């Protein structure tokens, strides 16, 4: 087994507020292998975007990393001074956000933004940077790239802008990309184009991707492995097919079942009753216990770690081999 | 849970408790307001009681100076009036004019702003152009103009009687466009929100939608603007009175006191002008700082 590119170990992110400190991420752990696409799914507020922000060192204050570590090729990057973190961001970790306008500077041409990024991080001259900028725009499917390189962001459509952002994230040839809801703001037909593009480019370059989205369809198509997050914790992590088709954790299973299928009509969609708890009211033990159909006493007291469960790892006491219970099939 | 308890636990009150500027401003403002409102009870003398005035007491220096006495902590003026008492009574007039003028501007601004923002189209264009035109004149000029017209149009005795109201209307008219613009801007945003559409679907009338749905949601920015504007209105009144076109000398405001004191500023009796001036600064500054704090506290992006 190759050593992982990125290791996240027991990551804790806290927000001090007037009503006490809120724990937005609570001991989140996962790895990303070189060239791997890890999907991170969960409902809004589950902490998936926060995990991405912590990795690229862009947590919004007053949020802060309060525990655990993030390692890139074995080196800690969670405690770097802002200057060094800025060098890693862009050069070694690229970022793609939901809204391309937050990434692109409206005052500069896309060409200038690409060349500046490349010249900051790569040892190339201006002419070479410009040649490559045109090449990147071609690679992300911008028609007439040689002319469009001197256009400003507002002269592109939403889908085209997101293509430019992808070029910008990849142009310094980073080892991994954090893509936070990269297609959510786009229409379905454009979404498919952008996902296909991201998939092709990262595979060609061997770039790892952390793909954060609430769209299970996008994950199913794109990711190698999936982490399902719930209330700031990883509920389950495993190969994409296993999580989608045969999730072990009752929450992931419920989540997958509640997705309306395109292929047929169901009279009553399976639903998870209730809602994810707010950060101010995370229940003791397993955070999912009040909604879980398989809950038993231990779940209400003791928090489960990620345990081997069928083909995945799930944070659920149903899979504790040391204290076997009736193995409820979920 | 009572309204008071809810306020006590609210984010707004928490922000207040943790902002020293806000607390100090509130205390200063409170002292000013109590001193002004309760002047007849708290003031050591009644400066308008001619019988109690004694010219022998004129030009007594403040207590801090050697010749001064604590009988008149801030000294006395050319008529022998106690300066502290005059300030308290004067602040009363200033506050009355400031609050009334702001309330007048607020009412007019809300009415125009809501109409313009909700109705849109031609009504919006006409009302906002009027506001734009008025904003190109300095507000003090507008106030002078209104006052001048009132002076020319009204008989002299009548004008003296209602001079305070003329000042209130003059300042109010010069300030309404700011309120109208704020309300219109917020109303434009609110009227496209889905809760307004929901009310339109069931056929709630536009005036009712404006009052019950839109207005409660623009109160926040309005409150901030009104607080900041109160300071401005007090200053405008002081300016008008200083220029001699404000409140009549029989009811001197802080501005009037400063004007009277101005004559003696360089002849050694500086306290007659300086203490009313300081009172004005304390009042306006505390109100403005409170307004600034309120604006920041209510702005979700800054929290």
């Amino acid at each position, binding site marked *: 087994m190759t050593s992982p590119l990125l290791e996240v170990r027991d990551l804790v992110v806290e927000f001090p507020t007037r009503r006490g400190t809120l724990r937005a991420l609570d001991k989140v752990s996962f790895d990303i292998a070189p060239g791997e696409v890890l999907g991170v799914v969960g*409902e*809004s507020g589950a902490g998936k975007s926060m995990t991405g922000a912590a990795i690229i060192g862009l947590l919004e204050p007053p949020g802060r990393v309060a525990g655990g570590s993030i390692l890139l090729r074995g080196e800690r990057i969670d405690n770097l001074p802002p200057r060094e973190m800025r060098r890693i961001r862009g050069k070694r970790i690229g970022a793609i956000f939901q809204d391309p306008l937050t990434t692109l500077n409206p005052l500069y041409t896309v060409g200038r933004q690409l060349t500046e990024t490349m010249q900051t991080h790569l040892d190339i001259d201006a002419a070479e940077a410009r040649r490559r900028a045109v090449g990147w725009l071609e690679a992300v499917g911008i028609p007439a790239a040689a002319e469009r390189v001197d256009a400003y962001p507002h002269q592109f*459509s939403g*889908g*085209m802008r997101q293509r430019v952002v992808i070029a910008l994230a990849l142009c310094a040839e980073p080892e991994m990309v954090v893509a936070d809801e990269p297609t959510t703001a786009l*229409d*379905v*037909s*454009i*979404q*498919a*184009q952008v*996902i*296909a593009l991201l998939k092709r480019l990262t595979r060609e370059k061997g770039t790892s991707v952390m793909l954060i989205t*609430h*769209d*299970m*369809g*996008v994950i*199913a*198509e*794109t990711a190698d492995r999936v982490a399902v997050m719930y209330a700031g914790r990883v509920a389950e992590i495993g190969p*994409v*097919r296993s999580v*989608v088709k045969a999730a072990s954790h009752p929450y992931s299973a*419920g*989540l*997958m079942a*509640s*997705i*309306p*299928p*395109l*292929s*047929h*009509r*169901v*009279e*009553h*969609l*399976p*639903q*998870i*009753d209730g*809602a*994810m708890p707010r950060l101010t009211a995370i229940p003791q033990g397993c955070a999912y216990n009040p909604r879980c159909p398989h809950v038993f006493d231990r779940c209400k007291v003791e928090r489960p770690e990620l345990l081997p469960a069928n083909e995945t790892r799930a944070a659920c006491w149903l899979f504790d081999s040391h204290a076997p219970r009736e193995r409820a099939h979920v | 849970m009572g309204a008071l308890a809810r306020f006590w636990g609210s984010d707004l009150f928490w922000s207040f408790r943790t902002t020293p500027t806000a607390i100090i401003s509130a205390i200063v403002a409170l002292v000013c307001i109590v001193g002004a409102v309760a002047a007849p009870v708290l003031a050591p003398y009644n400066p308008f009681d001619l019988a109690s005035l004694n010219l022998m007491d004129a030009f007594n220096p403040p207590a801090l100076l050697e010749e001064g006495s604590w009988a008149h902590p801030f000294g006395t003026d050319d008529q022998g009036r106690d300066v502290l008492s005059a300030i308290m009574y004067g602040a009363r007039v200033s506050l009355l004019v400031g609050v009334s003028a702001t309330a007048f501007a607020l009412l007019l601004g809300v009415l125009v702003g809501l109409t313009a923002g909700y109705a849109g189209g031609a009504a919006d264009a006409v009302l906002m152009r009027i506001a734009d035109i008025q904003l190109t004149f300095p507000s003090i000029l507008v106030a002078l103009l209104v006052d001048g017209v009132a002076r020319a149009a009204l008989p002299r005795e009548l004008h003296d009687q209602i001079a305070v109201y003329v000042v209130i209307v003059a300042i109010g008219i010069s300030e309404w466009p700011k309120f109208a613009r704020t309300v219109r801007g917020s109303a434009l945003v609110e009227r496209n*929100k*889905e*809760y307004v*559409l*929901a*009310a*339109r*679907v*069931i*056929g*709630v009338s536009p005036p009712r939608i404006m009052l019950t*749905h839109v207005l*409660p*949601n623009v109160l926040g920015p309005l409150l901030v603007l009104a607080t900041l504007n109160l300071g401005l209105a007090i200053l405008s009144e002081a300016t008008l009175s200083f220029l001699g076109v404000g409140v009549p000398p029989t009811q001197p405001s802080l501005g009037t006191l400063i004007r009277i004191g101005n004559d003696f500023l360089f002849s050694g009796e500086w306290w007659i002008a300086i203490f009313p001036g300081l009172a004005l600064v304390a009042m306006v500054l505390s109100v403005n700082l409170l307004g600034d704090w309120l604006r920041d506290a209510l702005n979700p992006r800054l929290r």
Partner: protein
Amino acid sequence: MSETVPIFEARELSRHFDVSRPALQRLLAREGRRTLRAVDGVSFAIPPGTTMSLVGESGCGKSTVARLAVGLYEPSAGQALFEGQDLGEARKSVAQRRRMQMIFQDPYASLNPRWRVADIIGEPIRAFGIANGGAALREKVGALLQQVGLSAADGSRFPHEFSGGQRQRISIARALSSNPEFLVCDEPTSALDVSVQAQILNLMKDLQRKLGLTYLFISHNLAVVRQVSDRVGVMYLGRIVESAPAETLFTTPRHPYTRALMEAIPDLDMAGKERQPVGGEVPSPINPPSGCTFNPRCPLANGRCRAERPALLAARGTPETLVACHAVEEGRDGFEGQRAAA
């Protein structure tokens, strides 16, 4: 046909918006007025007790149709009919207006943040004088809250105390409070998380069964539409390009755009599969392509498609489907060949 009168019918319904720049700028730039044809001649009918859905990408005009259907917009041309009566006329009567309601997309913007939940739900009850007296009103509000899965005590709370899904339930309770028969639902679940989306979709289906509601359902999500619809209209640039019973549409989509849309949706069953997404982007509705507006992106486009606007006609092979496509009409879409092969 001796059918019942449709609850709602659109006849060549259009809504145009003037998006010109101000007169002075227009004069300086020497350009004419610009019109956005948000909805351009749309026709459909919804029989009582059924769900008609409109799907399409952003800017296709589906939300404008929703607003036309409850009278928030006046039609620029064509007609909207409520039980055979002109909608504008019908809305003048309180008794008719009560019968139509709307559910919105954004559960954060659709409830007045300054109002208590009981007042929000009670607004239509008061406006239509449905319950007399405070006690009767409270009782009705409590019953509505329970009907949508909340508790009567929730009435005294404010919207910000609820989650997105709970707010959408409050929104539904408000819509139901005037005992309506026709509900226009504009993307009611697209702002919600999937597990909550399932709750709301189930609730809406239960309510339809219990109360005999008729829905006009607007969504961009084909999978959701499949779960709730009896009939589906696919919109592209202000027009319906295909309209069919839900089962027919999803098993045998006919219009090249419908097929492209379905192809574009990532499905859970497709893990790791490569797809060929449709190329190009939706053109500006201010200056749409001539003929069939889909022609620049269509693999089947020919000269006729670029010149002549196709009419919505019964499709060869699937007569229940109405489709606006020259290729289907001429049999150029290869549908009959595939069917023969199958």
